[in-house]
């Protein structure tokens, strides 16, 4: 790995006071950014400068900064989570940029993800989809059966685990030209549909989750495959096909 150096960059960042305000792109110049710093640390550096200048810092979402919580977002230079694939914004480093670069930073754009402030969006539509059916009902009155006591085909277990890796960051919606949430919902449906514990409520689950997804105002999937490319957890399009099968089968039963 090459040694860290300092670069000077130009930033074009979406600024919006609140959900109702009209936002716009603002330009900032930021000098002496270490290429060893993460993208979010670069924004921290910008915010420190803005605070020192008695200006409003840029609001952006972040939490674990380890690529696992799904809290960070940001549409960077026209791509969800920036130029790397398989990476969240918090795991993106400034070594991916060059001295003198102009970097565009925008919030996720979706009717179902309204902007709260600056780069922060409200992703509670994902929570409501989960609440509509993304769970397995378990009797916790003392009669719970250990999950390991139920034999599960290795292939199904692996696919379920891969689907469960979805962190719900919303990059799939952000990058999809249609603003579709089908990769997220497909992963959440698949995660349970593949396991015997999830099959009991499979019919209601897929019908309720898809209904909620449609009510939230997400677009329709046209299979461009952009979501799969930009997903930081590598969730496969296979999950959307499985959801489609589950939905058709559940509709005929229901």
């Amino acid at each position, binding site marked *: 790995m090459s040694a860290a150096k300092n670069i000077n960059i130009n930033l074009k960042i979406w600024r919006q006071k609140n959900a109702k305000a009209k936002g716009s792109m603002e330009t900032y110049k930021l000098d002496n950014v270490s290429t060893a710093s993460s993208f979010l640390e670069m924004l921290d550096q910008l915010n420190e400068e803005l605070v020192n200048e008695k200006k409003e810092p840029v609001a952006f979402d972040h939490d674990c900064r380890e690529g696992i919580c799904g809290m960070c977002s940001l549409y960077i230079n*026209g791509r969800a989570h920036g130029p790397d694939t398989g990476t969240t914004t918090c795991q993106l480093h400034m070594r991916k940029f060059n001295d003198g670069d102009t970097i565009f930073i*925008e919030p996720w754009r979706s009717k*179902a993800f309204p902007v709260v402030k600056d780069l922060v969006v409200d992703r509670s539509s994902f929570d409501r989809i989960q609440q509509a059916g993304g769970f397995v009902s378990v009797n916790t009155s003392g009669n719970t059966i250990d999950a390991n006591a139920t034999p599960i085909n290795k292939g199904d277990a692996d696919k379920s685990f891969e689907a469960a890796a979805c962190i719900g960051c919303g990059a799939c919606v952000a990058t999809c030209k249609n603003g*579709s949430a089908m990769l997220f919902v497909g992963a959440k449906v698949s995660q349970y549909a593949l396991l015997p514990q999830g099959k009991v409520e499979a019919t209601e689950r897929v019908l309720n989750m898809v209904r909620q997804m449609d009510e939230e*105002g997400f677009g329709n999937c046209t299979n461009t495959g952009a979501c799969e490319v930009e997903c930081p957890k590598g969730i496969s399009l296979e999950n959307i096909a499985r959801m489609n099968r589950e939905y*058709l089968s559940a*509709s005929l039963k229901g």
Partner: protein
Amino acid sequence: MAKSTMLKSSIAKKVAMALSGLFLMLFLAQHFFINMTSVFSPDTFNSISHFMGNNPLVQYVIQPILIVGVIFHFIMGFTLDLKNRNARPVSYVKFDGAANSSWASRNMIISGSVVLAFLGLHFYDFWFPEMIYKYVDVNALEPTRYFHELAEKFESPVRTGLYCFSFLLLSLHLWHGFNSSFQSVGANNKFTKASHKFGYAFAIVIPFGFIFIALFHHFNH
């Protein structure tokens, strides 16, 4: 769940779009094979065209189904596109779609609109005159007229150029549409790799075959 709710769902619309697309691709394939006979044997082309143009099953059952399928596919395509545009009321200032998806997949509405415009021209050239010939003027059956009617149309370089351009856009539409339709109906399995290859071959062979036929008649008659 009420069936009416199911039919309004995004997935049901996707499936309907895919099934109508698959049906139209089947039609396209048979149209291609019939037209290809015009290159090798005008007599065979005339015989098949006469059969297709006068068989009651083709005329009164398959043809109306086909027209409904075409209209449904286009109306559904525009409806879904409108809904998808509404799902992102504020556009990105910078959007790098080419970084993660093909032009063909992102612009189905453009390629589809060109194909729709082409269908208007194609109907004006062949279908309307055929309907007038048979059902308005009620002319006598002439089993040998089809090849001449076809060759005559491709005398014009403008028309031939428009047909070739439309087939290029059709190729792009099929490049994404063929494989997308299988994904939409839930077919993503061990056969997907092979079906993708077949889909790409279909998207090249059929439209470029039509281009070959148009150019053949333009330069040979």
